[in-house]
């Protein structure tokens, strides 16, 4: 025990360990993870790896939400985004798992251009993020009330949270109408997605069937690698239809 204590003392003199702000440290951890994985999504070519990086990035962002005291939003993010990405991942595997299609490469020129444009956009965003004095002040660290119940009441149209300082006096709107609109919207989307993706009865065979029977996969792969070559002729063969 004494040895441990003295070791602790040594470390403590070497670095201001007691001064460590654990909230900031965890913030740093999650923030670095989110940013690195987001950049890795851009850099990766394999769609399954992209999906993995995306999930890690979204999960780290959920961690940031928890750190900001938005527990309900964080859990929602984990549930919906991660479930949504899961479906993305499955589609990625289904639609691109045949060997020639695993990675559809980007031209290096495009990549460089995107890098330059992205860097300038990032510079503008960072400048504006640091431009407001109030945003740069360190957090006061007021631990707020848990927000799940107020959010639920707000979605039902009743506000129980305290108004922000700049809010005008009087009635503050709840979110009953947006909530209903979003639910109808989700229903419409559900029907539409089911309609779009349903198995249609076709007069002509599907393109992938044509591709499988007529063209050997290698030539399709060659077309994919060249990029835009077969638009006219091969495209009409693939689509079929009454041309």
């Amino acid at each position: 025990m004494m040895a441990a204590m003295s070791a602790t003392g040594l470390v403590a003199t070497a670095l201001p360990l007691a001064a460590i702000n654990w909230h900031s440290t965890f913030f740093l951890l999650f923030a670095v993870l989110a940013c690195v994985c987001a950049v890795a999504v851009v850099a990766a070519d394999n769609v399954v790896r992209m999906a993995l990086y995306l999930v890690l990035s979204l999960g780290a962002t959920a961690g940031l939400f928890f750190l900001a005291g938005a527990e309900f939003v964080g859990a929602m993010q984990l549930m919906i985004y991660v479930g949504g990405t899961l479906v993305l991942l499955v589609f990625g595997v289904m639609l691109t798992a045949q060997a020639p299609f695993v990675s559809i490469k980007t031209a290096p020129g495009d990549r460089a251009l995107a890098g330059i444009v992205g860097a300038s956009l990032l510079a503008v965003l960072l400048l504006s993020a640091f431009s407001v004095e109030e945003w740069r002040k360190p957090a006061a660290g007021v631990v707020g009330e848990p927000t799940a119940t107020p959010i639920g009441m707000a979605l039902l149209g009743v506000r129980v949270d305290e108004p922000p300082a700049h809010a005008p006096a009087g009635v503050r709107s709840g979110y009953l109408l947006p909530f209903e609109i979003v639910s109808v919207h989700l229903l419409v989307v559900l029907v539409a997605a089911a309609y779009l993706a349903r198995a249609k009865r076709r007069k002509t065979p599907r393109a992938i069937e044509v591709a499988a029977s007529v063209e050997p996969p290698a030539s399709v792969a060659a077309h994919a690698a060249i990029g835009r070559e077969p638009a006219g002729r091969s495209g009409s063969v693939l689509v079929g239809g009454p041309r």
Partner: protein
Amino acid sequence: MISLIGSTPLGGGLFAMGLFTEPVSVAHYLVVGAILFTAGIACMAVKRNALGVLMGIELVLNGANVNFVAFASPYLQAEGSRGLGLDGQVIALFVILLAAAEAAVALAITLNFYNNHATVDVDRADDLKG
């Protein structure tokens, strides 16, 4: 562990900047949001895989969400400022829901595209070109 991090040059630099010791501010979150947003834009612009473009959209929406939550959080606000309050969090929720809806429709379109073209390369979607 922390002492290990602190002894490396990068960790020492971060210490000097006060990232480990100072409380975070809204601007920290804004930086993360900006990086996510930019990565998403780049992803949408660069990827030729339709699924990659979708992932870019998710990243963009996510970056926006980080900003909303940061402005809404009472924990992150400086002394005397209350931020957006609950509104920011509710809008973040709506963004998440609409992102899910958007992903569903986009995936259905991608599936149709794949059925017609036997690929998910968006550069091949030029049937309507005059």
